[in-house]
């Protein structure tokens, strides 16, 4: 049974639909990557899974239907969404942001969670008392991911983590995400424009165009198709 | 509840509405012949309030700016009339345009800094204006002019040229004539270029300014016009009631005006009439219940109308007449199509739209 199963998902912001009958899967502990250009609907996909936009279709998390649940309920089930723009609580400190990540969990786990998260992101430990809005872009992205990890989720949804970050920072970020994927045994649904680095992490790839999945399969499928490879990987 | 669901000024009133409006005007004109003196007094006040509501609606409905202090402009108009008649011996009919002019200027001046304020800030500033106005009237320093706490009593207005009508009837005619002129002017304004600009500023302020509209000037202008209308209403009101006093123009009046606009229908000319009927007659009815009742009813109506009647009575009327007209149309086209070709299905397009 897959961790996340999406079938026939349609969603939109009023007049028209942005997603049209999307189907995808994330295996337990696996990494599924959704690639696509700007405006393809990738962010809407993640928002629809979390109940942040009006949607219809079938979304099952850990075998349980969640497509009728409110966002906060879905979060409490163990889905951690790292949104587009990071969604940092800018007026609160780094540590408070992390503490909020652990909101759904027991107080007793808090110290252990902090320890784990600071091990993955030592830079955040240095900045724990700093106001989150003053962190650099890369640090805020780390904070956003760290916040997700604090809740000990079963599934992390990541919306373009590399956005606006320098290549070295992106590399470091992905290294850490690989650690997290292995160490926390958490499934990841990753939405990216930067295909190259995302593919290294993935075990399933979905190509998104204008709200529809146009290709799905293992990363090798994308790499072996010359025109796709050229379009998405640049070589 | 739809958000950002503003009314567009009605481009062309449905024929049903136009007929209704004409009927209403005719009724209004013949009313003085049938009504008792007291009822005529009340009707005159309805006419007066409808002018005031028209003013507030220009600002709030069309301009999208809230005012919780329009009672002050009403009061300024009323006191202008009172002071000019009492201390300058001015004939009553001249005080009306004077009141309008004073309020136009003051409203514009208040609007100048106020344009920087939006939503809640503007609401607070105008609320403060409404609360403070009675206080200013009572200040010791200007007591000689304003009459302080006792206010100013005005003499009854006699009909001119020895016309064989009662003073009440004459006053009603004056008010009605003024109202008709002002209503037509308001309708023309809302359909004019200026009117469209004002609505554009309401709905898309950034877009408006980026095409070069001087939004500040238009907003102040809207304030001034709105104040002018309400001030003229205040002047007429003073003549009807024959008295101006500081406590008549406080928060309760400002809130009543807002209630009238909301209940009647935002961004609707006809709404002013419905609203005026409401705020004139409800206190009469409710007062019999208890002292607290008029306010309580106002509060409940305000809240309920947002949920149930977001377009006010005018919106309701428009919906009903629209449905009625649609049904008549459908029936007419139905009669036509049947004998022509019974084989082809009659497509009933408008039914129930």
């Amino acid at each position, binding site marked *: 049974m897959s961790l996340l199963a999406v079938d026939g998902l349609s969603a939109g912001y009023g007049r028209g639909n942005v997603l049209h009958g999307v189907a995808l899967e994330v295996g337990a502990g696996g990494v599924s990557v959704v690639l696509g250009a700007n405006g393809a609907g990738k962010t809407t996909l993640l928002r629809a899974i979390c109940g942040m936009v009006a949607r219809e279709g079938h979304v099952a998390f850990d075998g349980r239907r969640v497509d009728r649940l409110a966002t906060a309920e879905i979060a409490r089930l163990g889905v951690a969404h790292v949104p587009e723009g990071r969604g940092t609580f800018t007026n609160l400190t780094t540590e408070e942001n992390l503490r909020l990540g652990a909101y759904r969990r027991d107080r007793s786990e808090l110290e252990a969670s902090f320890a784990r998260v600071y091990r993955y992101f030592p830079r955040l430990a240095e900045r724990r008392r700093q106001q989150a809005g003053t962190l650099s872009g890369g640090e805020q992205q780390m904070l956003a991911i760290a916040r997700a990890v604090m809740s000990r989720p079963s599934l992390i949804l990541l919306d373009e983590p590399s956005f606006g970050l320098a290549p070295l920072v992106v590399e470091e970020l992905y290294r850490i995400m690989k650690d997290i994927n292995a160490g926390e045994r958490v499934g990841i649904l990753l939405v990216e424009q930067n295909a190259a680095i995302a593919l290294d992490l993935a075990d399933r790839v979905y190509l998104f165009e204008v709200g529809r999945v146009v290709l799905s399969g293992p990363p090798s499928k994308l790499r072996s198709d010359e025109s796709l490879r050229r379009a998405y990987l640049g070589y | 509840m739809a958000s950002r669901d503003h009314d567009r000024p009605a481009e062309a009133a449905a024929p049903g509405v136009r007929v209704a409006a004409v009927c209403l005007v005719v009724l209004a004109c013949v009313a003085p012949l049938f009504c008792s003196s007291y009822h005529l007094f009340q009707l005159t006040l309805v006419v007066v309030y409808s002018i005031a509501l028209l003013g507030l609606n220009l600002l709030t409905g069309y301009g999208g700016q809230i005012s919780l202090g329009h009672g002050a402009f009403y009061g300024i108009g009323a006191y202008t009339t009172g002071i000019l008649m009492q201390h300058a011996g001015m004939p009553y009919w001249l005080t009306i345009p004077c009141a309008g002019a004073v309020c136009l200027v003051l409203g514009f001046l208040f609007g100048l800094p106020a344009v920087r304020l939006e939503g809640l800030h503007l609401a*607070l500033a105008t*609320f403060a204006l409404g609360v403070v106005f009675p206080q200013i009237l009572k200040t010791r320093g200007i007591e000689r002019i304003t009459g302080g706490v006792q206010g100013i009593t005005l003499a009854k207005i006699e009909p001119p040229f020895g016309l064989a009508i009662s003073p009440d009837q004459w006053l009603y005619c004056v008010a009605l004539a003024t109202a008709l002129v002002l209503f037509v002017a308001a309708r023309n304004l809302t359909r004019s270029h200026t009117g469209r600009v004002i609505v554009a500023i309401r709905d898309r302020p950034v877009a408006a300014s980026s095409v070069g509209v001087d939004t500040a000037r238009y907003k102040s202008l809207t304030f001034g016009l709105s104040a002018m209308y309400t001030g003229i209403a205040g002047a007429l009101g003073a003549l009807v009631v024959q008295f101006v006093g500081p406590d008549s123009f406080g928060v309760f009046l400002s809130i009543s005006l807002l209630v009238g606009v909301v209940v009647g229908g935002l961004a609707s000319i006809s709404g002013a009439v419905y609203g005026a009927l409401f705020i004139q007659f409800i206190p009469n009815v409710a007062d019999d219940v208890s002292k607290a009742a008029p306010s*309580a009813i106002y509060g409940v109506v305000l809240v309920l109308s947002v949920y149930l009647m977001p377009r006010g009575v005018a919106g309701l009327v428009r919906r009903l007449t629209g449905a009625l007209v649609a049904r008549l149309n459908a029936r007419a086209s139905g009669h036509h199509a049947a004998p022509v070709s019974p084989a082809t299905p009659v497509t009933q397009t408008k039914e129930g739209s």
Partner: protein
Amino acid sequence: MEALLHQVFAGLASGAVYASLALALVMIYRVTHFVNFAQGELALCSTYVAWAMVNAGVPYWLAFVATLGMSFAMGVLVERVVIRPATRAPALSVVIVYIGLMVILNSVAGWVFGYTTHAFPSPFPEEPLFGNHYLGSHEIGTIGVTFAMLGVLYAFFRFTSLGLALRAVADNPESSRLVGIRVERMLALGWGLAAAVGAVAGMMIAPIVFLDPSMMAGVMLYAFAAALLGGIDSPGGAVAGGFTVGILENLVGTYVVGTELKLTTALALIVGVLIFRPAGLFGQPSAARV
């Protein structure tokens, strides 16, 4: 000199009340982005309930605590029943709902308790403490109670997870949902807290201005001025603003314009601040994406 000090300290006492109400306004503004025009009338109803209890023989501090609880419940109820259905309405309509609520609460108070003015008891002794000439005991008590309340609130927001959740909702409601916070419940909680704070303010000011349905109108104008002065989204600013307005009101009223024009001065202050510094002294100027 003595008179001046007396005015300053008296201003601190009324300032404490304005600070509390301004804080309540800011609390609700931060989570809902609307100004609670009905704040004063909510406090009025709470004060009346307290008065009814004391009149019925309930000891003061017991009535005080019971009123706090009841006010909290009333705040939650109002949020659920009146405010929540209007969340998707256009801004103007929401403002109208708040105003309608203000009017309803005021008239309910008048209807249930009548329009005669009543005296409201003060829990503090008649004689000035330590025989001082500057402050009556009630005024010292007001300042003391207010600071105690502010301290409790500060601790709540700073050190409890519920307080943190409320701050999160004020900061970023969407992200709050993403971490599992039920934002609707937090809104109700915020309203409940604001209502309780307002109740304290009402019970502190009633002995001074006497209890009748129009008690809160002038007080609220000062509270609005204080909240705006401090920045409508800044709790610290609201408190500072409240004390400032209190002292200014007294000094201006005594030495400059006299009591008649005190309220007018508040108007001038409000309009002035709104024009020159809409964000207030401590608030953050906000930029909107075009």
